[in-house]
């Protein structure tokens, strides 16, 4: 059942902020099941069109890989702007 009152739609900044916070903690995966090697994450960051799409899918349900990927992207961003 939905609320009759129209709620304010979430804006993009809130959405990505929530997404980063949620994905960084929601899927601990301590046994690192199905995790790709670091080199695959780097390839995804630097050459996404050459990367294996299943690596990107894995990030949707593995917080350690998601966090590592965020670090790689942050490093890439620093190198590009620096």
């Amino acid at each position, binding site marked *: 059942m939905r609320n009759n009152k129209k709620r304010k739609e979430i804006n993009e900044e809130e959405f990505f902020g929530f997404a980063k916070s949620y994905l960084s903690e929601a899927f601990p995966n301590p046994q690192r099941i199905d995790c790709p090697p670091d080199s695959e994450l780097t390839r995804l960051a630097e050459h996404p069109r050459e990367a294996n799409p299943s690596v990107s899918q894995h*990030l949707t349900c593995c917080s350690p890989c998601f966090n590592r990927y965020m670090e790689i992207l942050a490093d890439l961003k620093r190198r590009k702007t620096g």
Partner: protein
Amino acid sequence: MAAEGSRSVFRLNAVDRRGRKIEPAVLEAAEGIYSRALEHGLKLLGDPAVVTTALEEVAATVSRVIKGKDPPGDLAQVRDLRAYMFRAFLRHVNHLKRKELALVSLNEAGKMAEPPWAGALRELETKMLLDECLAQCDFIAQDMAWRRMQGFSWEEVGKIHGLSAHAAEARFSHALQQARERLKI
């Protein structure tokens, strides 16, 4: 409800609570993701029995989807069955939680100006929107999301995919809008 098996693998039933059969390969995948599914499901649903039942229902649904493929039972069309199962489970758990929160909202409606469930419902809807968007959008839209989460501008995101900033933003917005429409949020 599931049965206890070996120490390393939790055994699920080969039929769900509605009597729908679970294909052996799907059952194996469901058992493989059980520990992670349980950990995540408990945060939202709180009861291991409910979470296990939910996983069995998802496995039965996935079995039917795979049987309906051409040729029937062709697993090759599902690139990564365990990842597919896990995402299907997330969406099912979100759906169950949303129903639960909607019932709370009906019971509490009109009692207070700012009811405590409003924040929880909004957060759950955002989570559902995110799960739906990431599960259904294409690889490029997904890649755009990762980069935006890390503070890349639309211009930087577009450049990587050979698009203008505006085209990149429009492409992701479209994927998000489609997810909203599917969820009716």
